[in-house]
């Protein structure tokens, strides 16, 4: 929260002003009966489902700028809970919001169900180049754009520098070093673990992504699943070492134990998305000054490849009766004045201009001991490996991850066997749902 200086806010506002002008010029040419700006002037009501706390100040700012518009912001649950509610509303055909926050991994599922409006007609194609490639690819399905990025999660290594120093362990730059550091750390202090994991589909798929694995290939309704490809197996082999030697703490992410562990030196590192600093500041006050950010460990020495983890977009629902107005608000939140407000709230931007601004890069984070963490995170955003696809039923896939792959954490099953079981279940499900899965 304290990270964003006033200067950044000004700069953000200035940038946004320019952007708005450019867009105004563009949409003036397009015109037609679906003109977002005219809709904003005309006013109306919008129902928005989002759990991200920074959406609220954005909605307020938007209502202030457009007095005719009333935004009803509803927190219908975080992540899966909200998708459940959304799916129910879509199924029932009533109560569907105009806009909904949807994580990137879940977007294809809603897009293929034709629940989301294609934003190209409303001018979203003009935003090409505004966002970093990771999130921009994630909101596209085929020819359409089905949402605008709210944030992004290029991955980095968050580590407890104090702990590493205390035991004289070097910060790992490759995954081999990471495993070695895990062993050294646990040997030096049996209560300390390199990280905590009880089987997290998001982390697993992100590590496969970074390793060059492309287990999910989607072309319309033709889906290919290959969780035995080289990248996926590289992940499985490496992570298996950590599990076999009991080097990962069996603590589920976001639990009380987890927050405590991050603060008290039980958990030494987290490899996760760039949206994490805000959570550190609010959830792990004891960790202040101890934690630092480093580039994600690499699969080969000297490389610099990252992947995305988490992050969400906001989409206009197909059922919305006021898509033009909804889009106008969305653009405000995603590429307009809203971005500065989100940064103030500790979010990580998906917009290139913000990531490249010198002021943003030069910011020193008090929590991270005065480190210029945005330099690392911004670099991570540009290093995201391209060509990753999620399944059009990733929400389901992630829900059964622990049934299959998760067994490797609690039994003699290996990750490779778990991945094969996962693949089998996903293939069955996909075919049941009318996809052609190979």
């Amino acid at each position, binding site marked *: 929260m304290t990270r964003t200086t006033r200067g950044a806010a000004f700069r953000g506002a200035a940038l946004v002003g320019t952007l708005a002008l450019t867009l105004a010029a563009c949409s003036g040419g397009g015109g037609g009966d679906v003109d977002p700006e005219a809709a904003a002037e005309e006013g109306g009501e919008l129902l928005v489902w989002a759990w991200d706390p920074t959406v609220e100040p954005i909605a307020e700012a938007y209502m202030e700028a457009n007095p005719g518009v009333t935004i009803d912001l509803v927190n219908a649950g975080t992540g*899966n809970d909200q998708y*459940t509610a959304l*799916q129910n509303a879509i*199924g029932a055909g009533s109560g569907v919001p105009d806009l909904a926050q949807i994580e990137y991994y879940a977007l294809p*599922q809603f897009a*293929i*169900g034709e629940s989301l409006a294609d934003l190209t007609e409303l001018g979203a194609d003009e935003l090409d180049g505004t966002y970093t490639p990771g999130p921009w690819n994630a909101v596209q399905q085929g020819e359409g754009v089905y949402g605008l990025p709210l944030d992004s999660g290029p991955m980095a290594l968050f580590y407890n520098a104090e702990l590493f120093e205390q035991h004289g362990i070097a910060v790992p730059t490759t995954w081999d070093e990471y495993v070695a550091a895990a062993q050294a750390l646990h040997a030096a202090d049996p209560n300390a673990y390199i990280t905590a994991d*009880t*089987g997290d589909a998001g982390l697993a798929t992100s590590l496969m992504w970074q390793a060059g694995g492309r287990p999910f290939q989607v072309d319309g*309704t033709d889906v290919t699943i290959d969780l035995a490809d080289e990248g996926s197996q590289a992940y499985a082999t490496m992570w298996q070492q950590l599990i076999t030697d009991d080097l990962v703490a069996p*603590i*589920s992410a976001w*639990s*009380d*134990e987890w927050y*405590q*562990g991050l603060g008290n030196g*039980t958990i030494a590192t987290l490899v996760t998305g760039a949206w994490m600093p805000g959570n550190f500041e609010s959830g792990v006050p004891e960790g202040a000054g101890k934690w630092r950010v480093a580039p994600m460990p690499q699969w080969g020495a000297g490389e610099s490849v990252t992947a995305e983890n988490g992050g969400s977009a906001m989409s206009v629902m197909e059922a919305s009766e006021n898509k033009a107005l909804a889009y106008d608000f969305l653009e405000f939140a995603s590429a307009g004045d809203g971005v500065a407000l989100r940064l103030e709230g500790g979010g990580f931007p998906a917009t290139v201009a913000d990531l490249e601004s010198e002021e943003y890069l030069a910011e020193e984070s008090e929590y991270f001991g005065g480190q210029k963490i945005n330099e690392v995170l911004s670099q991570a955003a540009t290093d995201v490996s391209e060509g990753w696809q999620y399944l*059009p*039923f990733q*929400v*389901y896939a992630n*829900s*059964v991850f*622990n*049934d299959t792959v*998760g*067994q490797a*954490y*609690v*039994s003699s099953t290996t990750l490779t066997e778990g991945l094969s079981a996962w693949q089998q279940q996903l293939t069955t*499900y996909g075919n*049941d*749902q*009318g*996809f052609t899965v190979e």
Partner: protein
Amino acid sequence: MTQTAVPPAVAPAAAVRRRRARPSWTGWGFVGPFMAVFALVFLAPIAYSLWISLFRTQLVGGTTFVGLENYQRALADPQFWSALGRVTVFLAVQVPVMLGIALLVALALDSGRLYGRDFFRISIFLPYAVPAVVATLMWGFMYGTRFGLVGNINEAFGVSLPNPLSPDLVLAAIGNIVTWEFVGYNMLIFYAALRTVPTSLYEAAEIDGAGQWRVITAIKLPAIRGALVVAGIFSIIGSFQLFNEPSILQSLAPNAITTYFTPNLYAFSLSFSGQQYNYSATVALIMGVLTMVIAYVVQLRGMRKEA
């Protein structure tokens, strides 16, 4: 019955029709409001579930009528059977333990020899007043091997208790929570039944020289057999519908509690993570029928003993 059957035979045909028609309509007038609500909230959902269980909705391809295919699939679904097996084990172990403890406590309270009876009665009943969600969260915290009670015990006594939330023990851990929650409730049912036993029977037993044990087996237990059957049926239904506890503990033990841990959890996952509403309805209906059959068998057995 026989009395009402006689007059129509004597009375003229027209009178019979009038007499039969009028009461039936008046009756419906009284029952109507209930029937309307009953149809809306009980029959309609069941009918709707039956209806949608005959279809299959796909993400690609929409909805098609598939007849009984979903039922066929459920009967051959290893995940469904593993869920059913798990709650059956739960039923076979947890219910007798819970009802046994409840009975023991009820008999102790009823014996009149317990000092501070009202205090014990209320404190044993108290867990039932704690919402299941809160109780599970609380127990989940205590089960923690790192910061929870189990962790503290390990640390204080230098022992290493097994993790209650590991796959082998998690069912027992859930059984413990459910027992804790429902002993008080069942105790109250038994205790209430015990209070209705006329004291003259005890006096007679005393005169006959019967000891406490004899009084229990010959008077108290036979007297509360109805209550035992009722509590048993409730517990069977509760076991088959096991959902809250595993669902909440899932976030603490995601690998030990699968998405098909219990039939209800399976139906929930099918419908809300997999959007397989049709198949989910099928699983729910099959479980409903199974529960009814087993509860009915227990009731029949209980009644026969009574007779």
